[in-house]
């Protein structure tokens, strides 16, 4: 299984609902967002160009943060193909943060403050550890692990009625974020990527990101 996110930039309004959704789902204090929306402009009047680039963790296929983590706290989850952090192992050296070309990782510089209406299902975030977007592993991953435990076949399908999706995908106003399993040739993301030209962030870094941008 290879969980990926496809982002249709033509439908991103830049409203940052995803950021708000993520903050509440993961009980994140507002100062270290796990996901961002870049608002990129270029050009001269009146021919400006502006595009919104939502940025979750890329969950790279060749993640430099995992290779570089001395404690094996950063791991590539074999079942889902996502990059996850084991907070119980992280010693807070922040090496991974410098190794991530996208700088998606954030650090608990202090004890996470009390957030309004904390979500108990969200990952615990001890002081002095690194954290990042998990593709809402506590939701999406749980489904997959439960299915495996019970020995049933589980498909991550964006369009399915009972799909369990990351908070940002669920809450995207423009339906710009699309989530699914790229190893499954019938999944919506596979079909999208086979039919559209797609881009990735900082391709030159060779990290093989699993977040794809289409237009």
């Amino acid at each position: 299984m290879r969980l990926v996110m496809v982002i249709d930039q033509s439908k991103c309004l830049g409203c940052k609902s995803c950021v708000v959704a993520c903050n509440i789902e993961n009980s994140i204090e507002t100062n270290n967002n796990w996901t961002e929306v870049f608002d990129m402009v270029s050009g001269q009047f009146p021919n400006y160009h502006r595009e919104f680039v939502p940025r979750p963790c890329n969950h790279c296929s060749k993640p430099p943060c995992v290779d570089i983590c001395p404690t094996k706290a950063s791991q590539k989850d074999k079942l889902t193909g996502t990059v996850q952090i084991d907070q119980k192992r992280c010693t807070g050296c922040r090496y991974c943060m410098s190794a991530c070309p996208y700088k998606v990782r954030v650090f608990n510089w202090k004890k996470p403050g009390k957030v309004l209406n904390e979500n108990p299902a969200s990952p615990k975030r001890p002081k002095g550890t690194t954290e990042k977007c998990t593709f809402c592993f506590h939701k999406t991953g749980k489904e997959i692990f439960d299915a495996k435990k019970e020995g049933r076949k589980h498909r991550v399908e964006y369009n399915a009625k009972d799909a369990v999706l990351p908070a940002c995908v669920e809450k995207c106003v423009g339906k710009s974020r699309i989530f699914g399993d790229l190893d499954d040739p019938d999944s919506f993301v596979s079909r999208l990527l086979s039919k559209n030209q797609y881009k990735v962030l900082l391709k030159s870094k060779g990290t093989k990101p699993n977040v794809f941008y289409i237009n």
Partner: protein
Amino acid sequence: MEKNFETRPSVKYMENLSPGYIFWVAILLAFICGGIYAYINQFVHGLATTGLNDKIVWGLYIQNFAFFVGLSAGGVMVASLVYVLKQEQFQPIARIAEVVALICILMASMSIFVDLGNPKNFLFILSNFKSPIAYDVLIINVYTLICCLYIYFDTRVDFVALKDKFPGRKLLYTLLSLGRSKTDEKTLRKEKRIFTFIAFLALPAAFLLHSITAWVFGLVGAVPGWSQSIIAPIFIVSAMISGTALITVIIIIFKAVTKANIKNEVISKLGLIMACLIPIDLFFIVSEKLTGLYVKTEAIHHETVATVIGHLAAPFWFEVIAGLIIPLILLVIIRKNNLRPAWIVGLSAVLILAGVLAKRWSIVISSLYYNPMQYPDVSYTPTLNEIMIIGGIWSFGALLFTLAMKFFPFMKLQDKKA
């Protein structure tokens, strides 16, 4: 033995405690207490007490870590002049260099430890041998052990001798000599063999130590200022320069304080070593920056422009001008009686140390300003808490050396050949 008695160094300075000494120790203790307080503060409130942020993740601690590692490796390299390169004239400073190397590696370990956000998971750090940091921690430990053995086999005989000289400190010297008090020729010869082996081992260990530290940075592809193939040689050369400079400064102070019998020629020679190393360092810097400036590959070019002519250029030019060019001129031009005056060498050494510190800032911290994802600009300024912790570590190192002056035989008490 009788004949050489006059030339043998006096151990008088080890005996009495002058008011100046006590005052100095008190000052250092005060700083250490400040550092401990600051660390407790950091431990309780997290690294939010530092000026670091999510984009510039490493600051003063890692800068000093790299600096101390360099000093330590440089110290061993100077010490090895005596035994590996058979430069007997440096004999009087060899032990100082060894001790400084040990103290510096301890300081380096401390600086990396205070940098950890979650130190209780420290032991996990040796889990992943794909990570350069794991190797770095490993080599630091091995290197510390080598330094200890090096010092032990070099000075055990003197500890035994001092046990007789200061009966009051019998326990201390017994501990330091690990209870071995045999001084018969067979043992000495055996120890000499082990010592020579360790001395030969220490030099590659020092090289490895500093290279791996360089690769901790150099293997991070995401930071173009770090991931350069030339980074290990650059680190080694600055380690040698800064190590030599630190030893020089300490020797000059040591000589002034203890009136020890260290010839001016030795100091002048140290100046010569620095003067020879500076052009090599300059050469590496030019070859690194020239590539960055000339080749307009996105990342490296932006990075180099920022650090050489951009808003991050201050530490770089401080290093090049104050840390390299001025000392080079001073060391080459000013002579007195065919010797470099001690104050000139001392001044150059201080400048070089400051320059290398600036260079560590430039490499470790300025490189992290690279921001291809266009996050809002952030900057890093150390907080008082951070400076207090680093001050505590510096004071701890200085205190160790100051205390060592009272019990450690920096000058050889007896000739081993005898």
